[in-house]
């Protein structure tokens, strides 16, 4: 077994670089840094390519190495638990195959596997972790770098078992052995020891240890990286806070957004906040509570069960201190759910029970009105209330409510909304699910639950909801599925579900709007038009319809969409009819709409997907004729009439914008489809600029012959002066649009005739080839002018 990992890394890097695999060679050097210092984005950028290359080159050792470092990042920086377990197991197996067994990092993979269990449920897996680690420690020498990591991990397991004193002595013994073997202790080792000292209440020693460790690091000429600096500050702030040196602690404490960015920082950060708050040196706000609750949800989702419970207990203590009864109860309920996922609950089960008891002991607020009237009262306030206090009021109203089911459901909806805003996303969804049993037909309830699930990207939940609704309220089931499909841009399915829904409830308006949008996305304009026309048919009259039903009346956007769809279908009477309802005045009373309105910009997509903004003349409410002669990266060309979506893509400049900006502004619209192709073919001309006058005459002559021309080169474009190779002449590079009536040979003749008297010839090699004429003069021009 090779003993020096870094020597191996160096060799591997060298060999890969020499073999020309530079990117993998670089990745080998970069990846541990990204992983260790929490540069998660950069790690995610490099990792997939590196692993794929290692596999393609059949380099299993390199694969173990790469996957190990990523695993370190997932576990130590992102605090993933169950989520990382399948990969940890897979990697463990991979790192112990015949071809990888002697890889120096196979040992580290065993350690990753142990850490993963520490994240899932550290105390629950203490005996297993100790067994795995001691088995591995027995296999290696203290001179190896892994000895350092494994010893830290071992001491962490002892800490999780409530044995910090043993943990410290384990670290100290390991340190002695490593030093005796000539091995230097890593800064991580010292950080780990600082953590143990903190557990033992020896915070003065924490500070001293961090100072000496960092000094030693600097004396070696190695700069602390960002992550080390952050952790140094975090550990100091926590120790200082407990020593009562709150000012110093506050100065060092990382900002909340750093904790937001780095999950590894959060437990120590929240612990420090608790100490500082107890000392009256830090606020305890609902926003802080929401942030910490969000982190609880993160640990819940990544399957870090025990860290999740530990953090939610802290969040619970903070909520109790704020007197936020409902929030504290919600956390207690989350805690009770999480306890079932732990193997060992001594210590925490009691704390969760205490949290519940203390939360229940908090006074319920007095209701200013009967429970059934609370929501109206809250809605009538000029200023929104504090969300936690509102939640308490609504919860109180809910427990005393005795009216009909719908009223109870309204209270649940409000409460769920508030809890969601306070970070309790899962609890809010659970609340709605629970209510669904009592009030299965409540449209807003299923609507909100659907929205919550769709927002959370919970496809399984959406399916569960839809299946459940199918029995009682198939329309709602279809609507839920349709919205989910729309959120995922599966337009054909949107159409299917909407059609099924309309079969159940033929007068629905919003369903048709969604179905029409889906049809437009699919390019099915006849269907879209039919749906918009049905909207006009089934809509409620604008007058006399109450505000909450206003969405069922005809909106102006419906008419615009109808105009667009009808235009795409060339249904001109329908265009005119819908246009008249919006107030569009047409120059001609009937027939196809082909007028000259204003200059606009139509935004189309090139073959490679980038946007192309094309000047055009608007010829109707949703049509425009394109002006430029275009290259083959667009399926459009000069003279083509296109349909666009008549919603502005960019806001007009404000009144205060410079005049020039306001004057140059043109409305920008999204291209929808090609309506009437004009059939132009593009050929490129290139060469020296003939001068403004000649060019203007050239353009006019071409236009008169039914051709079009569009200059692509800027003022900076220059071509070689054939008289003096070091000099440049101003150049022109342009596209000539040849009408469908003219053949290439005719176009060639026209260009030849029009440029005959020019001092410098232009080249149009491709056109000449297509025309079947002699290409020699064009080749010569290309050569002489350096085109």
């Amino acid at each position, binding site marked *: 077994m090779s003993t020096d990992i870094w020597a191996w890394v160096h060799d591997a890097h060298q060999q890969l670089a020499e073999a020309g695999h530079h990117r993998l060679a670089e990745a080998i050097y970069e990846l541990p840094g990204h992983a260790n210092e929490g540069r998660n984005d950069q790690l995610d950028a*490099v990792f997939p390519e590196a692993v794929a290359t290692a596999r393609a080159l059949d380099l299993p050792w390199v694969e173990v190495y790469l996957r190990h470092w990523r695993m370190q990042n997932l576990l130590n920086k992102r605090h993933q638990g169950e989520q990382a377990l399948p990969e940890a197991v897979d990697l463990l197996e991979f790192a112990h195959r015949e071809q990888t*067994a002697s890889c120096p990092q196979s040992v580290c993979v065993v350690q990753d596997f142990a850490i993963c269990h520490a994240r899932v449920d550290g105390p629950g897996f203490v005996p*297993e972790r100790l067994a*795995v680690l001691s088995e591995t420690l027995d296999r290696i020498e203290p001179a190896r770098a892994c000895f350092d990591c494994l010893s830290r991990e071992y001491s962490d397991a002892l800490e999780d078992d409530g044995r910090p004193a043993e943990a410290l002595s384990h670290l100290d013994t390991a340190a002695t052995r490593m030093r005796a073997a000539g091995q230097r202790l890593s800064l991580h080792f010292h950080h780990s020891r600082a953590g143990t000292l903190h557990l033992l209440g020896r915070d003065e020693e924490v500070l001293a240890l961090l100072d000496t460790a960092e000094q030693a690091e600097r004396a070696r000429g190695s700069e602390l990286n960002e992550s080390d600096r952050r952790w140094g500050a975090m550990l100091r702030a926590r120790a200082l806070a407990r020593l009562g040196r709150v000012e110093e602690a506050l100065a060092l404490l990382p900002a909340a957004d750093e904790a937001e960015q780095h999950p590894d920082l959060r437990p120590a950060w929240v612990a420090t906040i608790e100490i500082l708050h107890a000392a009256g040196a830090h606020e305890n706000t609902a926003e802080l509570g929401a942030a910490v609750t969000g982190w609880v949800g993160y640990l819940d989702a990544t399957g870090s069960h025990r860290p999740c419970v530990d953090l939610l207990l802290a969040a619970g203590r903070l909520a109790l201190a704020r007197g936020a009864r409902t929030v504290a109860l919600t956390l207690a309920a989350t805690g009770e759910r999480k306890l079932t996922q732990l193997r060992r609950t001594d210590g925490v089960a009691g704390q969760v029970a205490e949290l519940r008891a203390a939360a229940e002991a908090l006074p319920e607020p007095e209701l200013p009105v009967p429970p059934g009237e609370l929501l109206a009262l809250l809605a009538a306030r000029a200023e929104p209330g504090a969300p936690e206090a509102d939640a308490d009021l609504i919860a109180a109203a809910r427990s005393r409510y005795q009216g009909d089911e719908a009223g109870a459901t309204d209270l649940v909806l409000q409460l769920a909304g508030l809890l969601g805003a306070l970070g309790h996303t899962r609890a809010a969804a659970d609340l709605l699910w629970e209510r669904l049993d009592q009030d299965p037909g409540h449209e807003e309830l299923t609507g909100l639950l659907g929205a919550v699930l769709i927002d959370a990207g919970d*496809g399984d939940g959406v399916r569960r909801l839809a299946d459940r609704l199918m029995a009682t309220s198939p329309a709602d089931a279809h609507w839920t599925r349709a919205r989910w499909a729309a959120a995922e841009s599966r337009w054909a399915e949107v159409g*299917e579900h909407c059609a099924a829904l309309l079969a159940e409830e033929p007068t629905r308006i919003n369903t048709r709007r969604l179905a029409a949008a889906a049809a437009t996305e699919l390019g099915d304009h006849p269907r879209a038009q039919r749906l918009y026309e049905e909207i006009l048919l089934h809509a409620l009259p604008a007058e006399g319809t109450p505000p909450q039903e206003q969405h069922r009346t005809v909106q102006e956007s419906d008419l615009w969409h109808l105009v667009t769809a009808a235009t795409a279908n060339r249904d001109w009477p329908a265009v005119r009819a819908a246009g008249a309802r919006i107030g569009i005045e047409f120059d001609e009373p009937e027939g196809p709409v082909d007028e000259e309105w204003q200059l606009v910009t139509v935004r189309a997509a090139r073959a490679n997907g*980038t946007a192309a903004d094309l000047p055009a003349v608007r010829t109707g409410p949703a049509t425009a004729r394109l002006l430029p002669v275009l290259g083959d990266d667009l399926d459009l060309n000069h003279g083509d009439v296109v349909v666009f979506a008549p919603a502005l893509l960019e806001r007009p400049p404000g009144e205060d914008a410079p005049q020039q900006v306001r004057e140059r502004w043109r409305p920008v619209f999204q291209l929808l489809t090609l309506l009437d192709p004009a059939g132009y073919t593009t050929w490129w001309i290139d060469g020296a600029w003939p001068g403004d006058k000649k060019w203007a005459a050239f353009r006019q002559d071409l236009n008169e012959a039914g051709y079009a021309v569009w200059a692509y080169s800027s003022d900076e474009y220059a071509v070689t002066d054939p008289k003096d190779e070091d000099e440049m002449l101003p150049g022109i590079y342009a596209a000539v649009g040849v009408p469908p009536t003219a053949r290439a040979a005719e176009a060639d003749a026209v260009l030849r005739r029009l440029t005959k008297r020019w001092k410098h010839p232009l080249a149009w090699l491709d056109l000449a080839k297509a025309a079947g004429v002699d290409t020699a003069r064009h080749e010569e021009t290309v050569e002489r002018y350096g085109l």
Partner: protein
Amino acid sequence: MVQAIVVLAHWGLMSEGHRPGPAPTEDLRTTEVDLGGLVSVLATHLYSTPLVALRELVQNAHDSHTRRRLEDPDGRHAPTIRVRGDSARRTVSIADTGAGLTEPEIHAYLATVGTGYTRLLREVTGNDELIGAFGLGFLSAFSIADEVTVTTTSHREPALGHRYRSRGGEQYSVEPVAARRTPGSVVELTLKTEHAHLAEEQALREVLGRYCVLLGVPVFVGDDERPVNDVPVPWREEPAGDPYAARMRFATAFGRRFEPLAAFPVGPAAGGTDAVGLLWVQDGGTYGSSDNRDLAVYLRGMLLSEDARDLLPSWAGFVGGVVESHRLTPTASREDLQRDEHYRALQQALADAVVDGLYETARLRPAAWRRILARHGQDLLGAALCDDRLFTLLADDVPVPTSQGDLTAGALRAAGGGAVHIALGSGGGFEEMLYRAMQVPIARGDRYAVLPFLRRYAQLRDCRIVELGSEHGNRELFRDPERPLPAEERAWLAAALADEGEQLVPARFEPPGLPLVLVPDREAELKARIEDDQADARIPSAALRLARAFTARTGGEVKARLYLNLAAPAVQDLLTAYRSGHTGAATAAGLLRSLKVIMAAAAGPSGTSPAGDLSAALAGIGTAVSALTAALPAGLPAVPDTLPDLPEALPGARPDASGGGPDEGAGA
């Protein structure tokens, strides 16, 4: 390096003392330091290349001009520096028309280390144009020369001339010579053999062109009429014409390795840094390596560091540039910079300048922008992840490698029917088969930065992302059937199509031409490997126990899922035939079963897929064909309605079409 700094500090202290007075010129004097030791330090430790000695001498010449201007502000002197090389004689000379030295100055400044008039002068006058710092400059000449002479005439004693001469630097002599025509000095080096190449004037032009490009005093080589440093510096003078063209000219002249694609200025940032200069996007890159960052840093007009790449953001591998600053502090070697707060401020300012510059380019120079995207697409993908503004700029423009060439995320999305498809694996597998059939472009998730870039794009542009090869992504491919199949039909299909360990899943998926597809269960695969007896020998026992505790949670009975496409005409026909009791149903099912096995064999390496035996499947095709083509008397139901028992048939032998076998596929 550390050693060298200690030596210098030491001599810096010594130099505070009084210098001995001038002694008779014929005496050979001993330099105030142990030059033998110091020169070796200089030559082997302090400077990375002998060229640095030349730089130091040119810089002395430049300082001498500044000094003259300070001491004689009204005097008329035309500052020039001329460097000549003579390959035949193996000499290099550096001549200036600056202040020159008096004899006491020769003793004081040429022969001592760690001081230097320059530094004294700068401290007294606060003049920033003086470059020298450590008083080492002159002595560095001995790292490349056997013999050094300095012939000088001070502007204060224009009638006197002196010549300093030393071999090896440890001992020197000073003798009177005729005064120079104009005050100033000429330093002549007789080069050591190994440095003879420095005497070639073409080499000198190249080196000095780079070192002196920002130096105010014109530097000539040989008899040239044009100074090597006559490229207009776009941030110093108002250039004639288009400022952008001026920037591009400078970048072209300066960037030796690559042509610039676009150039943008660096200006002093508020409260941050005084640095000014120019950055440019390089054309091309070294094969396989994306980090071609190239930044030259000048301090008071003189090149300080040729490779200060760490000042540029790590993601900007395609950027080159030049900056000058007065605030940066060089290390003792004057080839690198101290990492102080000015350094960090400049790092930030440069990162901002790159982003600003790219924005400007995208807005004003679409052609250059397209070239940048085409050249550096892959690096930009990664860069976008490191900087939010850059991401916004690049989200729609930068091409992503896909199965159908480079496409922007928008094009990928449009072609994917509103969803962005990414393959996580490095090819192969059923997903690729499926998507090859659908002809949807799939982003190469195994390429640099593609996956996180597209994930963020999907977030920003609110579109669906399908990660093929992930459990969730695979589920995306298969939609539920419109109506669930009756249990009895499902059972018949399972018996007819699925092999052992395969679970039949009725579904709908694209393309309709594909009737079924087999998806291996990764958890079951892992379970099998962990629970294999061989694992005992390989994996340490405590870890293995824990791993088995994990795999015990999955049943492992389902080794693969067989998705049956109810939207496929073939499957619909099969079901119709079965429902109507058509005698061909079993034969048709046998064909589909063979198709499944053959596709699974093509999609994955053998052994990983639990699908049935390939040779049996191929034989099954033969059976079906012969059954379908058998000439039969009308009305006789002689086409077998069950699959023959293939595994028991002899390999290669065609089973007897009329004989049939046990009713293993019959559920009807």
